[in-house]
């Protein structure tokens, strides 16, 4: 996305905002062009990240810093399938598409929360979910089709109007430990989706499927095999079960037709003795040509990772001046506690710094590689290292506001004693595997979560809002200069995006373990949060 075209999009969006956003013309039928210009359709939430740049930012500003404290609950939907609920809805033409755990898609009326249709995947009796929860984080929509990746690693295409199954293809064998929780990414005529299962000793990959037929268009493996470049970064044949899952939804730059997707940990997690080397392309950001599936460049954040610090966190795309020159950037707040800014055309490291306490590296070198501390590995007796296994941030999405230029990251401050265990693995054997060790976290009052505002181009911290407990909520930024998030105790709240000052909060009675969204219907802006096993929506009276 070149700066000029984005400015044009913003101008259009601002114009539309001034006019109050007319009703959508497309009902349950979404074109690629509409997702491409999601900023111009803020009444809907068209793709997992809010837009292809994964901003999770809405141009809606009816709710702003002056009135957010008047928000009132509008409706509640209680799930028909209970479990870990981490879904971020898609909203299109008056319908909200939400996924219930482990793989049910439900279409709700956005005014009332009344269910319209529901579809549940047929799952194997012996379902393997090694190292992940049996849940789902959302759907993708393109045309009149809703796409969901099932927990047993199939891609299902559903009629957006009825929920009827159009087709279903196998992405990977669940019996090998491959499982999927992420929302797919719908591009022009294709559906991109990755896989989870790093702890099961899989060999990671990312796929693209024809949106009409389900035919696989390409597959990019994240671990090279014998004879391929990079295989020498794996000792012996450890590449065979190298992990490097692709388990969280990435972002997309239409100007260069490039997909940005993070990869997970190498396997086994906490014992790298049998996989000496950098272990490419684990814990890496991949830039992928969307047509061919070929890798354009890669940037490995954590070579030879041994703490389960996946780099699957959503990459955020924005443009800003670097050394006086407008530059295409990709930024990631990484689970390893560093915030990185790269040139997204080349993969070249521009800057980075820690955004949470970490004790494993002295800092980043000029090329962005970590200058590691000695003794930063798990040991048999246990070694205290920051951050903990779940990292300074995990799967939840940060947001980016073009108004402030800040990236809002729900950050975890916590250390852990890391233990080293068995260096070998038996792939897909949940009774034996292991990640080669484990952790004992330092809990108590010294551990906390915080929403942190990082200056996008530098990672400098501008403010933080501290929370009690281990929060697993993404952030939502809006043109009302607000940031929404929630704590582990069930408080859903709004902060001033410029200052971090809390303005409004409501207790929802259970943890919010999902990314909130916002949409508009009948001229009224709604804000959505998923707490416990329910969806709550709020609007001004």
């Amino acid at each position, binding site marked *: 996305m070149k700066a000029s075209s984005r400015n044009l999009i913003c101008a259009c969006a601002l114009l539309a905002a001034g006019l109050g956003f007319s009703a959508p013309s497309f009902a349950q039928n979404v074109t690629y062009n509409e997702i491409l210009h999601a900023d111009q359709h803020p009444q809907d939430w068209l793709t997992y990240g809010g837009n292809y740049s994964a901003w999770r930012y809405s141009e809606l500003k009816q709710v702003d810093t002056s009135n957010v404290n008047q928000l009132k609950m509008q409706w509640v939907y209680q799930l028909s399938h209970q479990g870990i609920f981490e879904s971020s809805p898609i909203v299109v033409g008056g319908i909200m598409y939400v996924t219930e755990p482990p793989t049910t898609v439900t279409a709700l009326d956005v005014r009332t929360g009344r269910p319209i249709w529901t579809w549940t995947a047929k799952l194997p009796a012996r379902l393997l*979910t090694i190292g992940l929860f049996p849940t789902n984080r959302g759907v993708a929509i393109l045309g009149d089709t809703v796409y969901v990746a099932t927990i047993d690693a199939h891609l299902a295409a559903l009629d957006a109007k009825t929920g009827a199954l159009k087709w279903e293809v196998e992405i990977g064998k669940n019996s090998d430990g491959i499982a999927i929780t992420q929302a797919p990414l719908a591009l022009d005529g294709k559906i991109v989706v990755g896989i989870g299962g790093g702890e099961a000793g899989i060999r990671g990959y990312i796929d693209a499927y024809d949106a009409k037929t389900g035919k696989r268009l390409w597959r990019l493996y994240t671990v090279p095999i014998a004879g391929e470049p990079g295989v020498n970064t794996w000792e012996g044949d450890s590449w065979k079960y190298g992990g490097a899952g692709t388990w969280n939804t990435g972002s997309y730059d239409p100007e260069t037709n490039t997909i940005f997707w993070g990869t997970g940990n190498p396997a086994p997690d906490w014992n790298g003795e049998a996989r000496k080397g950098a272990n490419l392309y684990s814990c890496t950001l991949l830039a992928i040509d969307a047509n061919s599936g070929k890798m354009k460049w890669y940037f490995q954040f954590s070579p030879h990772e041994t703490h389960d610090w996946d780099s699957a966190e959503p990459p955020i795309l924005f443009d800003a001046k670097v050394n006086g020159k407008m530059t295409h950037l990709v930024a990631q707040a990484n689970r390893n506690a560093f915030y990185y800014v790269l040139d997204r055309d080349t993969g070249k490291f521009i800057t980075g710094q820690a955004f949470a306490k970490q004790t494993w590296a002295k800092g980043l070198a000029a090329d962005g590689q970590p200058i590691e501390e000695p003794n930063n590995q798990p040991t048999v007796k246990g070694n205290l290292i920051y951050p903990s296994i*779940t990292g300074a941030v995990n799967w939840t999405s940060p947001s980016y506001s073009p108004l402030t230029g800040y990236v809002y990251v729900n950050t975890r401050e916590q250390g852990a004693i890391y233990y080293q265990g068995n260096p070998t693995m038996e792939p897909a054997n*949940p009774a034996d595997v292991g990640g080669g*060790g*484990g952790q004992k976290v330092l809990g108590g009052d010294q551990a906390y979560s915080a929403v942190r505002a990082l200056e996008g181009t530098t990672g400098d911290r501008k403010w933080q809002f501290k929370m009690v407990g281990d929060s697993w909520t993404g952030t939502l930024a809006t043109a009302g200069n607000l940031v929404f998030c929630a704590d*582990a105790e069930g408080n859903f709240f709004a902060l001033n995006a410029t200052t971090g000052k*809390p303005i409004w*909060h409501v207790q929802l009675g259970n943890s919010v373990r999902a990314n909130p969204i916002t949409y508009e219907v009948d001229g009224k802006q709604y804000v959505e949060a998923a707490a*416990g*096993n329910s969806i709550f929506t709020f609007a001004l009276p």
Partner: protein
Amino acid sequence: MTSVKRWYPATLILSAAFLAGAPFASAQIPRGQAPPHEARPTPTPERVAAGKKIFDGTCANCHGVDGSGANGPNIRGAIRTMGPEGLYNRIYGGLIGSGMPNFSYLGQDKIWDVVDYVSTLGQVSNGATTGNAQQGEQVYGSSGCASCHMIDGQGGSSGPDLSDIGAERSAAFMHDELLNPGANRPDGTPGLPDRSTYQAYRMYRVTLPDGKVIEGMRVNEDSFTLQLRNAQGNIVSVNKLTAKNIEALPDKSFMPSYKGKLSDARLNDLVAYLSSLGGAK
């Protein structure tokens, strides 16, 4: 809360440190149900070792390598609150509405291995006790302990329940706590096992907007509010956004020190009595 109440006492006195923290789950949460299965085989060191292997690979990421909690709750001592069947059911069926998946695919034998291993977590070796437990029970009765602590349903509830304390804390630890209460508070949220963990029984001094100062022990906290129990046992809710000042008092405790109040012999008797309490049931 019924069967698990003894594991979630409301507060402190003989020092919260006697409790390991927030364990598995409360009785209100529906448990996963397992279909009819074979009775628990007799635990053996081999079964415990096999269970440890499964636990390390499958359970430790959430519950911590020693069961003290990580992404999931502390399960040390869960065998005492849930029993072997309860643990079997939970592992087999998971816990709807929580992060606990269904591990039915492990099969009966392996699930019992895990139960056997989990049963060993949180059991401490008591160490040598030189006192007389029978005399220690009298010391317990005459020293006012029961006004705050409960044992097998008898006694006060403002301090930790001590019914299983002998299986949870070493003699040396209890001895130290009686002399230096509050020195080793555990992390955990007594009474709220499904919530966040933080240091239990911590004392706070809060200056309210009108200048009034209150002091009490934390019974709950979230990002916006703090609930304290004051010396009278009343609970006061504090708005953290409007309070003038909130000061943690990590070294303070409602529990009096017994330093100089009990002779060494009587102290040892009391520790011997406490060490005799509880264990796997």
